């Protein structure tokens, strides 16, 4: 990243400064938090809440306008959860998986579509909340907790049997998986979003007009795919934790 920051020195356009790892620090007691991440995440959260409230404010049997849109979104999320968890199990996990998808998707697209960088804040710049490793790690760890919770609430201590099935020799790999799962989830999302923003920033820095547009479009696509991948994998992990060995034979 040093070379990129070096490039920004010769850049005369304010639009195309490239900054990574500079934060708008807020202090809460002895802790520090990244203010720019929270500002954009609040924006994302309020977008989601406002859209939901508008959609459910006046519910009708024949949906219209935003209710129709949000119903389409809900059906999409239901299908997503149902595909991973199955018809029987998906309902209690719909809010978790659905919110993962919505939060990541709206975060990513807000980063790609809204020119956050035009709003000047001291010491840093606004970007998608998923652009910060803290956000993605938080979401990935929540996913880990979610599938542990799912496994233990479904099978109690019998969940540990998952580690030695089908053969005990896989035990180290299974234990390792519990660490690689959140790691891969968080870094995949973080890397994709950050890389996309960096590539666009570098291209804007080199050729400010028109040339970055295809890449921005590709960025929108990547952003959507990453949200889908994160939610799908979360569903798959939860399903893996709750699926019984006995049920496998029943299929």
């Amino acid at each position, binding site marked *: 990243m040093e070379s990129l920051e070096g490039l920004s020195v010769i850049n005369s356009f304010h639009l195309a400064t490239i900054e990574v790892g500079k934060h708008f620090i807020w202090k809460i007691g002895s802790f520090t938090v990244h203010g720019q991440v*929270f500002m954009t995440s609040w924006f994302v959260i309020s977008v989601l*809440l406002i859209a939901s409230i508008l959609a459910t404010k006046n519910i009708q049997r024949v949906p219209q306008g935003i209710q129709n849109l949000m119903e389409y979104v809900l059906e999409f999320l239901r299908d997503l959860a149902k595909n991973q968890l199955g018809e029987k199990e998906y309902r209690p996990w719909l809010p978790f998986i659905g919110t993962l998808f919505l939060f990541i998707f709206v975060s990513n697209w807000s980063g790609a579509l809204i020119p956050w960088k035009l709003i000047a804040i001291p010491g840093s710049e606004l970007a998608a909340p998923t652009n*910060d490793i803290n956000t993605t790690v*938080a979401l990935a760890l929540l996913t880990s907790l979610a599938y542990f919770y799912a496994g233990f609430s479904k099978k109690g201590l019998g969940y540990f049997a998952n580690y030695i099935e089908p053969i005990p020799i896989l035990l180290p790999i299974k234990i390792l998986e519990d660490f690689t799962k959140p790691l891969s989830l968080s870094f995949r999302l973080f890397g994709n979003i950050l890389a996309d923003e960096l590539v666009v920033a570098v291209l804007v820095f080199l050729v400010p007009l028109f040339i970055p547009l295809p890449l921005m479009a590709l960025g929108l696509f990547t952003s959507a795919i990453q949200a889908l991948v994160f939610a799908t994998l979360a569903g798959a992990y939860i399903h893996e934790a709750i699926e019984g060995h006995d049920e496998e034979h029943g299929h």
Partner: protein
Amino acid sequence: MFDFDATAPLMAVQFLILMFLLNKVFYTPLSKVLDERADYIQSKEKDARQRLAQTKQLTQEYEKQLVGARKQSQEVIATAQAEAKKITADKLAEAQKLAQIQKEQVQQEIETQKQSAMATLEQQVDSLSRQILEKLLGAELVK
């Protein structure tokens, strides 16, 4: 770039709050609506299907009735025709019988009259022939 601090746990808490709120204002109410609508459509469809089946049954019943009525009417016509034919035949036979009887009577009458006429004729022939004889031979000779 990889500087972790209190952002991560706060973000997790924030996410959980968002999940809770969205569950209240998004998932629960809209899921309810979707389920209710699915139920509504299903019940309506069932109802419609039932009605359709009922209609089909009724149609079949009516068609059966129609066929029965048609058969009945044909039967009625056939019996009426047969009856009429029978009546005609009866009347015809009666009339023919009557005619036969009358014919026979008349014939008999004719016969008797013919016989009586023959008888009178024979008498007349007798007397005539006598007269002829008298004329030819004279009265004395004839006696």
